[in-house]
Each structure stands twice: as C-alpha cells, then as structure tokens.
C-alpha cells in the first residue's frame, strides 16, 4: 500500500478513535465514506465507470474483442483484468513502484471473478467452441486514498453493468466456417448480467476491532486485513475469493467475525450499488447530458 507518514501519537489517536467506534472522519466502524459513481464516461470504451470514494479515484474502461474460447470451456467467454497504478496517484508509484500493488489487485480481481458462478461467462459466448467475447477491464488508479480493493471492485462491477456489446448475427459459410456480422446500429446492443458479480470488501483490524473502508492513514495503523469477495446469488452471500494481507496474523474466531462483517457489508453494498446503477440508467438513459470537466 502507499506509504503515509504517521507518528506514534497519530497512530494512538486513530486507535483510540476506533476503540470508541468514532473514527477520525466521524464514521462508525461499519460505515463507508461518501461515494460518487458515474458510468459511461469514456467514449472510446464499450463500458466505463468512474468511482470516487472520498480521496480514492478509480477510472475503469471495458474494451471488447472477439476471441476463441478455451477448449475445455467452449461455452464461456473470457475476462482479463489490468490495473495501472499511475504515478500521479502517489509519488511512490513512480517507475515500477506501483507494479506490486497493481499485481496484487489484478490477482484478487481475477480470483474473485474466476468461478463461473460468480460471473456468467455464458453470456459472453457467441458460437460455442468457436467465437466468444473477450472483455478487457482496464482499471486506472487516479488517486490513492486507501481501500483500493473495494473501490476497484465496485468500479469494475459498475463498468461491466455499463458495458454494451454490439448485437452479433452469425451466418454459416462453407466448410463449417461462420461469419459474424456486427450490427451497425450503435443502440442495438446487449448488456451483461452482473447480479452475481463479486465485490471485494476489505475488513481491517486495528487494535482489537475490525472495521471496513479504511482510509490510507488507518491502513498504516492496521496489523492485518482480510479481503473478502462477496458474491450474491439468490439473495444469499457466497465467498468467491478471500485472502489475508498486511503482514499480520489473526485468531480463528477473529477471522470468523471479520468474515461475518465483510459478508454483511458486502450484501448491503451490493444492493445499494445495483439500486444506484439502475437509478442512474433510468434517469440518464441513452441520451446523456453533455458534461463539462471530466474529473471535476
């Protein structure tokens, strides 16, 4: 994680705040910071989203390509994640400084989206065994204000929701070769189902307590955190990828508490995100008002 200079006194202050359930910015341990989400901001991508979680700023673009499905999964499309920690997020990322963090984010996203239960890969299939969509999910970290895992997964899910795949019709030619015809009408497109797409929730342990959505300062104080990937299916939360990070260890019971907290938060976050995405879509529709000033 990005480095924040903190003195012992500051750390103690944060620790006491967490113990009192009243954090530096007035939140309780279960609260998220205000979030700002906008979809369809990049004109050259099939789908995009920009998420601002207090100081953390993420921009995601989804690009599409037609590919050959893997032989063992002829009915599945493909997803590929890429995270770029740009040097303007924090000076630490200059040169190759951000590559470790980027690698970690890519791995956790890949892990979370790995299972076909977590993401409906069938919807990306064009012709089983021959052609499928491959989605490139490019994530740009514009500013780093803590809690990157959560922000990145939220933004990725929103961008997937926003992704429009052009409608494709296939004609059979000789020798079993198929020819794809991509629709000319830009509004003739299909959407991707994201009901089960996972969200990552970082549960951070500071002192004896667990909290969600840590700021960069709080991350500096934490001994260990657990990244829980929550996928909702039939109204039940499922785990689709979990790992611990931060260089500490925890007791089994603590871990179970963290897991419970992460699951309940993930559930709430998921319903809220779906609701907001639907609302935005209904309000803005296909005709988006021209916005001036991209980053605002």
């Amino acid at each position, binding site marked *: 994680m990005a480095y924040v200079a903190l003195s012992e006194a500051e750390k103690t202050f944060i620790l006491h705040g967490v113990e009192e359930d009243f954090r530096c910015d007035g939140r309780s341990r279960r609260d998220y910071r205000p979030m700002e989400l906008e979809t369809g901001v990049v004109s050259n991508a099939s789908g995009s989203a920009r998420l601002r979680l207090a100081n953390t700023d993420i921009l995601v673009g989804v690009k599409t390509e037609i590919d*050959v499905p893997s032989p*063992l999964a002829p009915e599945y499309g493909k997803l590929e994640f890429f995270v770029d920690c740009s040097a303007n997020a924090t000076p630490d990322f200059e040169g190759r400084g951000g590559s470790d963090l980027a690698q970690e984010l890519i791995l956790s996203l890949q892990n979370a989206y790995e299972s076909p239960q977590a993401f409906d890969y069938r919807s990306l299939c064009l012709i089983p065994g021959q052609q499928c969509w491959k989605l490139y999910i490019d994530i740009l970290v514009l500013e780093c204000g803590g809690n990157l895992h959560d922000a990145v997964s939220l933004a990725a899910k929103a961008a997937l929701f926003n992704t429009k795949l052009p409608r494709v019709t296939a004609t059979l030619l000789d020798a079993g070769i198929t020819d794809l015809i991509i629709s000319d009408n830009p509004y003739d497109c299909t959407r991707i189902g994201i009901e089960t797409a996972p969200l990552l929730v970082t549960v951070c342990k500071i002192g004896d307590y667990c909290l969600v959505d840590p700021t960069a300062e709080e991350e500096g104080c934490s001994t*260990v955190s657990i990244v829980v990937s929550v996928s909702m299916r039939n109204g*039940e*939360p*499922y785990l689709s990828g979990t790992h611990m990070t931060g260089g*500490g260890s925890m*007791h089994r019971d603590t871990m179970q508490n963290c*897991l419970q907290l992460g699951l309940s938060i993930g559930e709430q976050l998921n319903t809220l995100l779906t609701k907001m995405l639907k609302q935005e879509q209904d309000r803005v529709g296909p005709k988006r008002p021209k916005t001036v000033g991209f980053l605002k």
Partner: protein
Amino acid sequence: MLRVTQTKNSLLDGATIADNLYTTPQDCEEFFESLEKPSKDPKKFTPRKTFIRAGVLTTVRGSAYMEYGNTKVLAIVAPPHELMRASARRMNMGVINCYVNFAAFATGELESVPERERHLGSMLTKALEPVVCRTEFLNFQLDIRVLILDDDGCLLSTAINCCGVALVECGISTYDLITASTACIYRNHVFLNPSSKVEELLWKHRGVQIEAASGSAPEEHGLVITASMDTFDQIAQCQQCGYLSPETYVKLLDYTLAVNKSLRQLIRQVLTTRVREQHELDLREKTESALEDKRLKEIIERLQQKGLDEFIQSNIKEDPYVKRM
C-alpha cells in the same frame, strides 16, 4: 490425462479451426468418475507420505527439502542483506522477498508457469510475513528462494512448510513454527491435500459444471489454503478461491487447521533431531580439536626437553631413495 495440446490450423482468410486433439469436457467427466472418492468423513484421511530435511545444501546458511507425497520442494534462505530498493526503506520493518521457480520438468503445462511463479511468490510472501520477526532486521531484506522439483498438488502449502523449516535452519528469529495445508471441495466431495489431478479438475471446473437449477443452491467448488501458527492459534494466511458458502468455508478451514496440527508435530520433531545432530557434530568437533591441541602440546613439550637440533634429527625419517644411492 487433462493435458491440453491445442493445435491451430490457420486458414487463408485468417480464421482458425482448433483440432480435436485437446481433452474435452467429456474427458474431465470420465476422469472424475474414475477418481477415487474420499470418504464422507474427511477426518479419517490418510496422510501423505512426508519427508522433511533441514540443511541439505552446504553453500547457503538455511536450506530445507520437503517431499509431500510426490510434490518435491527445495527452499533456500540466505541471511538478510541491505535493502536494494531505496523506496522500501521507509518502512519500519524488514522486507521479505520470495521467489518461486519451477524446474523445467516440474509441470506439464509450461505456458502458465511464469504467471504461477509470480502468484505463488506473492502468496508465499504474504504467508511468511507474519511469522518472521521483521522488526529485528530493519532496513534489511530477506530473500527466500523456492525451487519446485515436482508438482503434485498442494504446492503453496508445501512451499510454506518447507520455508518455515529453512527459516529456522538459517537462524532467522520467528514467532512460531508455521505449517500449512490445502483442502478443496468439488461436487460435494471434500479432498484434503488434493493431488494435482484434482486441483486441475477444479480449475477446469468451469467447463464441466452442471447447470444448477434456478432456485436451488448453486454448486459449491473451491480451494482453501491455510497457514497457521498453532502456539497461539493464529492464522497467518488463509487463501480461498472458487465459490463457497460461508459455512463450507469454515468447515474447510477447520479441516486444514487439524492437518496443520499433525504436520506441526512432524516439523517439530525434524527440527529437534536436526538440532541434536548439529549438537553432536559440534561435540565431536570439540573433542577432535581438543585431541589436536593435546598432540601439539606434547610436541612442544618434547621440543623443550630435547632442544631444537636433536628434535629435528629425531623427526627426520630416512629417505629411501637417498639410501639407495
């Protein structure tokens, strides 16, 4: 069995046709049928044959070799040296770097090797960070290298076990002994310490999945790797992938913790015998050097008694060649 050898025939118009050489989802199905299913009560599992030895290499301070069934892993720990990257220096703790390498013959699938090496390296670092007293080597970095000689499943957990032994052998202070194990669930069968075949089946699961009827609970599949330090019941790392309900997750976690406990006994025993062995070696060395000292002392005494010339004369053996001439 599950190896994929895909060949592509490029046609003139750029389209490709995949040949039928690869294994099909049907083959996976058949393989699963042929697989020996574990009993419903995984507590009565048969442990894998385990062999651990500390100090196998003489060129490095800390080394360990572990065989876990057919999985063979060699770990090397060098004493900490000064940080090379200045940017990491601001941390108030030492830095651990783990590098995992596959031997060229370790695995059949060569394409994914670089990616797996990176992944294993980062997971290994995460698992070992809690166990090493990193405050003791501020501004230093500890390089841990792992060579995988043979892959038959449970790679990460075997590597963690092996590194734990190598760390102790190198004399790096650790908070506790670290042990790790793997458990996975596939089609409601719990496999403890899955072999590479089962693990592969799990990854390829995406292709052979039976469509879960809507409304019913989705089929769970997944893998849990737990590294624990049992003196204070601490979990150093717990990685999960796949799709699991929280209850199944906790169940698998408990299974792995139980395996860790039994492994801990073994590692402890190996380390104590190693220390004892070393102690005996030290003792023997000490007696030998004492004998040497004694011999030298005698010579000096004789020298003092006889005087220099006489002593030299008494020690000159007649040269047989000189005599002949």
